């Protein structure tokens, strides 16, 4: 959280943030009596579980937000339909899974093999990616650089997708089922913990490593990173950047779809989930800095931690104020770094 100011002088805001962090840490470790979890010192198991919850949730947040930040980083396009792509992929993955298992209701984990989870996930994500690609080619490719206009176009797309999804899939909440092979429980200091959350985290790690290899070790990734820095120069060097843009949009939308299947298995989907996940992506990238994958990882981790720690360590009678802590996190980061932790001014 240390701001890299040009002058060696420590800004007062940084000091205040440091004090707040120290206070939060002291509260969680020693003082949090009368909370759902009790101080970490007296109940380390609960603390560990809460932290693990935060990290695994951060995995899901990272997968969704990385697609969002990838698209923004290269093209400066804010894809307000990101949550809608998540929604479409989630609903489709659920339908495909039901078809593969052969039941529409009361599917249990034992019915679901690894294929019955990964195939629906890939189908959903592929459809989301194709929708994203069509939207990009048809509506966004010809007005590069007009940020607001592109944002408005994707808003309109999200309105249409949300309405069509309501008609096609109905307004009821649905869930996808994790594969039986990963649905186990183990004990941490006497608390049962579901391995599906670790499965979710491992998918996120695979995605993160894949993205890292793609962006640093392949030719296309190098072109993308060059494009983030100087689009015109890349174009002048003879790279067909329009293809790079299309591929990036495809991958970004695909990641929204992967997140959709994970989110559908983790918490279910219903109407309005698109808005919730657009918000999650926004919070992550605003904290981390738009366009930075490292930022998305840092933002996801911070946001995931706040989301899991705040209900556990707020005094019981003020539990419902946990939403304010999300906002406080956002405000604190923005006061110190207006463009996010890893963001750069335009």
């Amino acid at each position, binding site marked *: 959280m240390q701001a890299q100011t040009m002058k060696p002088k420590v800004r007062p805001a940084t000091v205040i943030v440091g004090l707040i962090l120290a206070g939060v840490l002291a509260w969680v470790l020693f003082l949090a009596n009368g909370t759902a979890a009790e101080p970490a010192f007296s109940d380390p198991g609960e603390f560990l579980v809460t932290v693990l919850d935060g990290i695994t949730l951060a995995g899901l947040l990272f997968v969704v937000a990385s697609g969002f930040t990838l698209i923004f980083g290269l093209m400066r396009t804010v894809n307000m339909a990101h949550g809608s792509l998540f929604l479409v992929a989630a609903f489709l993955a659920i339908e495909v899974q039901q078809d593969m298992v052969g039941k529409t209701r009361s599917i249990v984990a034992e019915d679901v093999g690894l294929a019955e989870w990964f195939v629906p996930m890939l189908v959903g994500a592929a459809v989301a990616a194709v929708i994203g690609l069509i939207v990009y080619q048809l509506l966004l490719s010809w007005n590069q650089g007009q940020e607001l206009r592109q944002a*408005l176009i994707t808003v309109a797309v999200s*309105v249409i997708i949300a*309405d069509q999804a309501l*008609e096609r899939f109905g307004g009821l909440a649905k869930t996808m089922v994790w594969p039986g092979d990963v649905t186990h429980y183990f004990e941490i200091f006497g608390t049962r913990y579901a391995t599906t959350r670790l499965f979710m985290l491992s998918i996120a790690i695979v995605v993160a490593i894949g993205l890292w290899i793609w962006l640093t070790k392949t030719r296309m990734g190098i072109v993308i990173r060059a494009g983030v820095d100087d689009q015109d120069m890349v174009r002048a060097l003879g790279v067909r950047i329009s293809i790079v843009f299309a591929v990036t949009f495809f991958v970004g939308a695909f990641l929204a779809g992967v997140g959709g299947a994970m989110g559908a298995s983790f918490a279910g989907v219903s109407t309005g989930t698109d808005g919730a996940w657009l*918000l999650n992506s926004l*919070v992550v990238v605003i904290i981390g800095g*738009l366009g930075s994958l490292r930022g998305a990882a840092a933002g996801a981790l911070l946001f995931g931690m706040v989301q899991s720690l705040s209900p556990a360590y707020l005094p019981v009678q003020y539990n419902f104020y946990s939403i304010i802590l999300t906002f406080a996190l*956002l405000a604190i980061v*923005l006061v110190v770094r207006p*463009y996010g932790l890893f963001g750069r001014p335009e």
Partner: protein
Amino acid sequence: MTNVLRRNWLFLLVVLVILTLPLYGSNYFIRAVMSRALILGLVASSLVFLSKFAGMVSLAQTLMYGVAGFMVGNAVADSGRGLLLGWDAWVGMYFALAITVVVALFFGAIASRSTGIYFLMLTLTYAVIGYYFFGQVTTFSGFGGISGITPPDVLNGPTRIYYAAAAVSILIYIFYRAIARTPFGLALQGVRDDPVRMTSLGFNVPMHRTLAFVLAGFIAGLAGVLNIWWKGQIDPQSITIARTIDVLVIAVIGGISSLEGAWLGALVFVLANNYLRVVPLIDKIGLTQDRFRTIVGILVLVIVVLSPEGLTGILQKAWAFVRRKTSGSVGEGPKQEAIDSG
């Protein structure tokens, strides 16, 4: 000079129509269509004001409108959910507006260093967090919302609320026109066009942005007060992300840098919402009343792709075209501003 006269002539005509409408409009039309259009137009106009004068496209206007509504509910209601202060309706209004201004000041100050698309996303985040706040924090509302709110006696009745909404809308519109020429309005437009130069000229850029946000928040708050008086209840459903997008959509339909467009867009939006089912043959192409949002989405898409200046831009172009045809000379067509140069 003729341009100014023509503008005012049109404005006066519209005011006349609005004021005399209850004489010949049906009760349903006044209550369900016009009042709602005026209130939504007022919220959308605060968005347009920020976008036009300060270059800030804010999605937090629905939240400000919601904050005012919830605060009226908390102050006035004496049974049900919320703080149950049981105050007089007018006191409730002042209380609600004061709280809205304080909240806007706080939010505006945090967002004042963010610009462009960053500001848009930050305000969207405010909006959604606000929704969850009023949903989860049962001290102020909870998901059930607050109901049974009556306006002050003077304004009790559908036509009276309509006149209140009309009067506030007209006054605020005149206020927008006037503020453009004040030192503050000019400085704001300077901040929009070149913040660096304004800073070196000694202007406090974040403060101007914050103050503009507070002003827009206050106006959205007025609309929120009118809305809860008109509707009698408010719940978090009225400030969801979908409602937030609705207000943006209204501004875009009307033309995102056109103040009168806000009300025009709201009217079109509400008319489409209410009368789509009576359009003949529209169900034959698979578009029913239930798919209202799809139609709105397509409309916005068409407008943003073809005419970023919205309906106002289309009307102005048509008007310029007619004048050119009739007078035979090139009319001084209204200057078109690009929606965003990026």
